[in-house]
């Protein structure tokens, strides 16, 4: 057991300006499908993601959003390439994602291991 890899849950984090302690699954879906674009305090939401083939992104989509990654890709491609909206900002690594969340007002993202992250707001997802 000591040598088995530790399995972490996916944690939703935001920039401290978001000032939100919890979200429902549907609210999180609305945020990631770009249907809710402001926090309750009026701050614009800036959504960060990892590439769609990244295992953590795939896990996040299925477990937290209850969507398949291709469904989100389809929504984002449609928004981006039709002009009707913007897609989340994609970063290559978890470290880059954490850095972006810390430094961007209103940013939201996800991490696997909370113990490596400080100075962010952790959001609880209610079922």
């Amino acid at each position, binding site marked *: 057991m000591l040598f088995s890899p530790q399995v972490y849950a996916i944690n939703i984090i935001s920039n401290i300006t978001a000032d939100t302690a919890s979200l429902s699954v549907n609210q999180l879906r609305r945020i990631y499908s770009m*249907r809710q674009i402001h926090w309750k305090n009026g701050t614009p939401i800036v959504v960060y993601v990892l590439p769609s083939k990244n295992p953590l992104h795939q896990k996040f989509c299925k477990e937290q959003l*209850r969507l398949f990654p291709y469904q989100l890709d389809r929504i984002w491609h449609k928004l981006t390439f039709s*002009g009707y909206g913007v897609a989340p900002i994609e970063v290559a690594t978890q470290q880059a994602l954490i850095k972006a969340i810390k430094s961007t007002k209103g940013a939201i993202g996800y991490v696997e291991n909370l113990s490596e992250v400080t100075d962010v707001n952790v959001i609880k997802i209610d079922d």
Partner: protein
Amino acid sequence: MLTSLKLMIRRTRLLPYYITALCSLCLVASLSAAEVNNEKLQVHGFVAQGLVNANNSNYINDDESISLELTEVGLNASYQLNNDFRIAGQAVYLNGGNRYHAGLRLDYLLLEWDAFHNDVWQARFYFGRVKNNHWLYSSTRDIPFARPSIIIPQVVYFDGFRDVAVGGDGAAVKLSYSDDVVGEIDFNFSRGKSAISDEQSDVVIGKFALGHLDHDLDMQASVYWRPAFSSWRFGISALDSTFTYERAQVDNFFDSDFVFQFYTANALYEGEFWQFSAELFQERFVTKGFYFPSFHRDDIGQGYYLQVSYKLDKNLTVMTRHEKFYANKDDTNGLELTQSTGGLVPSYFGFHHDNMIGLSYDFSSDFRINAEFHWMEGGARLSPIIQPDPIANDSKNWQVWAIQFMYWF
């Protein structure tokens, strides 16, 4: 003959340089995009190149040879001016052979106004050149990785009408609602007109009509509904548009008015392995004049397509589609069409059917190859639609295959 041969050779020699230049431009833009993308400015794009061939038809080219005329390149940018306003634009270069005229296009250039929003409602207005967002794939018909196949269902997304149907100069509004009980509802409305160039006019009405075709204002509306946490989505749409043809001083044809109305209903299912989509439609196409001043034709056409895809593994998807279209629902075998044209237009121009199979493989999150084969029957979705060309399209049955690589960022 010799000149044509030289031109062909020159074109073939230039092609590798041309494709290299396109790919280099895309690479530079892609690298730059990674640097500039932030909460205000976003830059995205794509490049796709393929091989395509149509047998027994001039759908792609006149000599029915294997063609590289399957090029699609696009670059877009979006900038958030403040909390309420955003500007966005996209330019595309398209080359689809005879399907539509090759060249650069300003795909959209708009100002978005976020007029109202709360947790469940969003109301946004768009002004400028806006894309048609009303059918399942209308806003992504030229985006190789965001449409279902290389050749999309011609019964709905007829290439000959591409430049008119893709969008226009005007305004649009999108009203969205979502909650845990009702699900997601989107209402779209747009009003605008498309400028029709001489090249586009040739595709629609043919080269022998020397006058000018104009698109008057059109009006479109659609409603989409996804029940809460459902894998299904349903939609309906309606389009009403008119066109006028002004004859040239010396012309074989006459001043005319065309009316085109188009009503659709669609369903989409998105499962983990299976995907399903279908669109049913009815269209009304009225011709007043054109062939002679008192000419009047009022045809009601009907059609549908059913499409199923299955993920064989996380990167490989197989798909199949069945399409049917009758230009006149009361003349499904086209015999009346042949009679009314004195035998000049064969009966198979009264319908268009297609059965296709395709494969798609993802090399990564942003690099894909698609391949497909179509068994087509009939000529009702071959350009020019107003004056069919039975000499170039002398076969009821024809086939198309295509293979295309695509990269996006």
